[in-house]
């Protein structure tokens, strides 16, 4: 069970059995040694570097023996990971590389080691520490500040290909591109007419033209809004989806993307939750749906707005990314702690009290700390803490504003948050850049896309930084960024993996993107009924609950999902009820022969011609069922829409 009140944590029963003496400022490096470094060395290094074997005369079994070093000298230079032999040798390019035999510590493990060494006081070793070194080597080439983003992406991505000396996929054909771009930008496959029109065009910039056409469409805004709804709110039950529609939340997101509103403003509206005009009313729903659960609100804001997962910092500083501290977690909670759901004549609102919300949280050693208004990357917001119990007073609030709106405190924590924490926070741009990159390229520059912390370094640090700056400098406009991404060379590569051991972080082929439930059902409806919106109701809701993921960390399929597709009622019924004259079944039956049917179906579903083998199989299947042509088509359509080629954007 979540402990909702920080005050409860302080008295948490577990700590009573332990000694509660306050230790004199514990050495953070020693704590990390015990909790993270020792287990890491134990499992990765101690097979050889133990007390008896002492390979290279290095014994990594205790803190003392580790600091002693080995034949080659000290293993650790306190405060300086880059000068520490132990850290150097476990790098990808370490020579001799440790651990041997092709093993490589993960980025996360490297981060643990670096963080530990950095925190170590000089007294731990004979050497004096100098100021922390800049972590990144200086690049050989820096992109110009006002460059064209697509060009910059291409150059930076190519530089890494060159360095890795691995094969790169060829450019995607028009067939592949047209299907991919429709799925990514409008969440459905193209119609036969749209596909044909694109393929037949002879213009050299036809891809650019298509991208601009799609980006400016309402369909694009609506699809993107549905993706961001899932990312921001999570999946819900049908009642929740109805509320998100009714209260204007969906409309708020759709309008934001349709008008290409500056993203920092959109986020500000969501977190301040005080709609200025009626059209913005839905902006309150991000907070409101979380029903006064302030920890839940903070844990949602972390990934949605800053690209950070902060749950880990509830009980202690983040174990892997120690820059995310426990006080940041409770600080973020505190900013929203005074909010309360109210129903007004203008709709759902979040009122804010001028008093209360002063609590303490307790760290693992049992020491209590006040929950100051502070969040990662920003100075503390000053607020006087009352000594005793506070009494509320109308004078604490601004004179009434708009009619029926909740009164606003003179000192508003939410206002402070958007003004002093959110405004120009560098992670706002980074989070959006990384998320859009992940959506369109199949993997974030930081992976997973919502863990932009020191334990998850970006695959292309300079590019990531440059794109984030560019996004800020051009008014946080999502459309410019999306356009730059989909016009890049990497986006337009063929989807066949060029070599078995190709690294997805190099983006040297177009990565698999399993369709989200919305895009899959819209595509099914497009294919079968020539009408992507014809999926409201049970088809969409059953796909949402069986395929809830958007940007999952691991792309896993379950047996229960295959069972659903094979036997679930909703898909079966949707197929069998697609029998109107304008629907695909009838249109296929009107064609002269089976091979024309298979050809047409392949073009419509997969945006390509079937190869001879596929044609033979498909025609054979229909021939066997010549006495039941409608049923034959339905079975075939099922096999198409549940195939991996249909299910995955590639």
């Amino acid at each position, binding site marked *: *069970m979540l402990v909702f009140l920080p005050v409860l944590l302080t*008295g948490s*029963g*577990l700590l*009573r*059995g332990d000694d509660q003496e306050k230790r004199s400022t514990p050495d953070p490096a020693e704590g990390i040694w015990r909790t993270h470094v020792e*287990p890491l060395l*134990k*499992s*990765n290094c101690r097979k050889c570097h133990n007390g008896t074997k002492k390979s290279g005369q290095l014994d990594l079994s205790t803190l003392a023996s580790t600091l002693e070093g080995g034949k080659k000298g000290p293993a650790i230079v306190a405060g300086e990971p880059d000068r520490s032999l132990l850290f150097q040798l476990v790098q990808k390019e370490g020579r001799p590389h440790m*651990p041997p035999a*092709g*093993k*490589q*510590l*993960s980025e*996360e*493990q490297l981060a643990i080691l670096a963080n530990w060494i950095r925190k170590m006081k000089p007294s731990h070793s004979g050497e004096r520490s100098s100021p922390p070194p800049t972590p990144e080597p200086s690049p050989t080439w820096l992109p110009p500040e006002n460059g064209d983003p697509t060009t910059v992406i291409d150059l930076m991505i190519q530089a890494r290909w060159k360095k890795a000396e691995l094969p790169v996929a060829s450019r995607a054909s028009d067939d592949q591109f047209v299907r991919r771009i429709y799925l990514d930008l409008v969440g459905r496959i193209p119609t036969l007419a749209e596909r044909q029109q694109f393929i037949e065009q002879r213009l050299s910039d036809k891809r650019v033209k298509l991208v601009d056409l799609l980006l400016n469409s309402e369909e694009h805004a609506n699809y993107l809004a549905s993706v961001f709804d899932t990312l921001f709110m999570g999946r819900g039950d049908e009642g929740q989806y109805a509320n998100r529609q009714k209260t204007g939340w969906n409309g708020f997101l759709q309008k934001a993307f349709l008008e290409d509103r500056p993203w920092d403003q959109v986020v500000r509206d969501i977190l301040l939750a005080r709609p200025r005009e009626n059209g913005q009313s839905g902006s309150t729903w991000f907070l409101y749906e979380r029903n006064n659960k302030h920890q839940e609100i903070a844990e949602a804001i972390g990934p949605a707005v800053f690209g950070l997962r902060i749950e880990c910092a509830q*009980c202690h500083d983040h174990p892997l990314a120690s820059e995310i501290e426990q006080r940041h977690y409770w600080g973020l909670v505190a900013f929203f702690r005074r909010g309360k759901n109210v129903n007004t004549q203008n709709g759902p609102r979040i009122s804010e009290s001028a008093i209360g919300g002063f609590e303490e949280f307790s760290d693992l050693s049992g020491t209590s700390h006040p929950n100051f208004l502070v969040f990662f990357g920003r100075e503390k917001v000053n607020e006087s803490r009352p000594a005793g119990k506070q009494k509320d007073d109308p004078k604490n609030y601004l004179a009434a504003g708009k009619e029926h709106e909740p009164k606003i405190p003179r000192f508003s924590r939410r206002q402070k948050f958007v003004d002093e924490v959110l405004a120009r926070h560098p992670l706002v741009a980074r989070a959006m850049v990384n998320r859009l990159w992940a959506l369109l390229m199949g993997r974030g520059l930081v992976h997973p896309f919502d863990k932009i912390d020191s334990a998850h370094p970006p695959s292309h640090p300079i590019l990531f930084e440059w794109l984030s700056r560019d996004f800020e400098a051009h008014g946080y406009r999502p459309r410019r960024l999306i356009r730059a991404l989909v016009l890049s060379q990497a986006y337009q590569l063929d*989807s*066949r*993996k060029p070599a*078995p051991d190709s690294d997805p972080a190099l983006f040297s082929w177009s990565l*698999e993107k*399993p369709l989200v439930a919305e895009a899959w059902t819209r595509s099914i409806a497009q294919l079968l009924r020539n009408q992507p919106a014809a999926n409201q109701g049970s088809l969409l809701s059953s796909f949402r609950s069986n395929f809830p993921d958007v940007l999952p960390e*691991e*792309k*896993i*399929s*379950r*047996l*229960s*999902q*295959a*069972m*659903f*597709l*094979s*036997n*679930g*009622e909703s898909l*079966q019924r949707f197929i069998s009820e697609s029998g109107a004259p304008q629907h695909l079944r009838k249109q296929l039956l009107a064609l002269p022969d089976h091979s024309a049917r298979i050809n047409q179906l392949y073009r419509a579903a997969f945006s390509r011609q079937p190869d001879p083998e*596929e044609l033979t*199989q*498909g025609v054979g*299947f229909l021939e*066997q069922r010549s006495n039941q042509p409608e*049923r034959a088509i339905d*079975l*075939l359509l*099922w*096999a*198409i829409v*549940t*195939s*991996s*080629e249909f*299910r*995955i954007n*590639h």
Partner: protein
Amino acid sequence: MAMGAASTGSFSGLFSVPALAEEVQRQNKKCILLWLCGGPSQFETWDPKPGTSTGGPYGAIRTDIPGIRVSSLMPRCSQMLKDLAIIRSMKTGPTEHFQAIDALTRGDTPRRPFTRPILGSVIAQQLGQLDSPVPQFVLLDPCPEGNEFKGFKAGNWAGWLGAEYGPVRAGGKYRLPNVDRAEGLSEADHEQREALRNFFSRKFENEQRGEAAAGFNAAFHRVKGLMSCAPLFDLEKLPAADRERYGPGAYGQHALLARHLVENGSTFVMVANGMPWDCHVLNHETYQMLVPELDNVLFQLIGDLKERGMLDDTLVIAMGEFGRTPWLNEARGRDHYPNAWSLALAGGGIRPGTVYGATDELGIDVSENVVDNRRLFATLFSALGINPHQEFDLPGLPTFHRVEEDAQPIREVLA
């Protein structure tokens, strides 16, 4: 990866005599895990401290083992202790559900970059008949909710073994969802359209070399098998008298179903029901209902397995992810407590009538024979004839072992 893992994972001396003996020993072994999610209180179950400041209002009663007492909430099990092995000296690390569930179902805390498979996946892979249509690893859990357990369920259970060793999940109305062919679809149609789907997909998968495509396609390969054994999951088909004995609650009914499944070819069944044991509020009142149900369910299950001659081959585990605090919080609940807690084992490979380990007078700490999650898992694997110390050297992964640190199984608990 899973294929490579399976071959690397086989015993090195397969043709030596001890290995053959081991194989024989492993035949027909099964396991039922009664997962008491949320963390049951040791005081109200296996390690009562009556009359002390920590013991709570319930007394302790005599058992069929002289000198050993259990909570008065467990009258039935008290007369069956000779069939069980109780460990009273569990001492583990994580204090929060998610991390503790992780450690106590996988046997260890996370060690990136690989994900350790859950107990059921390991046992299904090691002991199961993977070509059998009957699912080898079943999770019966009627409650889709359950706070952190809900989050945990959404994770990667099979870990590095690969998704095919993940559980088949059932529950709710005691039936598997989506097992029936749609009306009007003949068996031949169902099979032939699947063959066509597989043909289309396989081609794509091979050309793309895509892992997501391969995983998606692989999930369909088990559909037919699972459909064929759907009746196994139908509780209605079991004798009413049996259903009555296990009691009206979902947990009891699912325990019965677990028995039925292992009788019919499943290798590992995990029975859960959300996170009911997490009583931060009104511990005693809640346990008054929870513990007698567990008492009966365990009693019926062990009795049934014994009667059917299956107990010697079926390991039964009843445990949660930690215990509860000796003291009460302000809401008269007991909070999470990994420092000293209890669990029960029975059946295959376990020495019956054992009580191992002890806690101090107030149950605050373990006073003898500490058992952590590694020793526990070494014991469970050993009981089933699975080498707990097997070393894995897989490409791209650090060297690791089925159970790390050479943790020794508890000899006193093993038959």
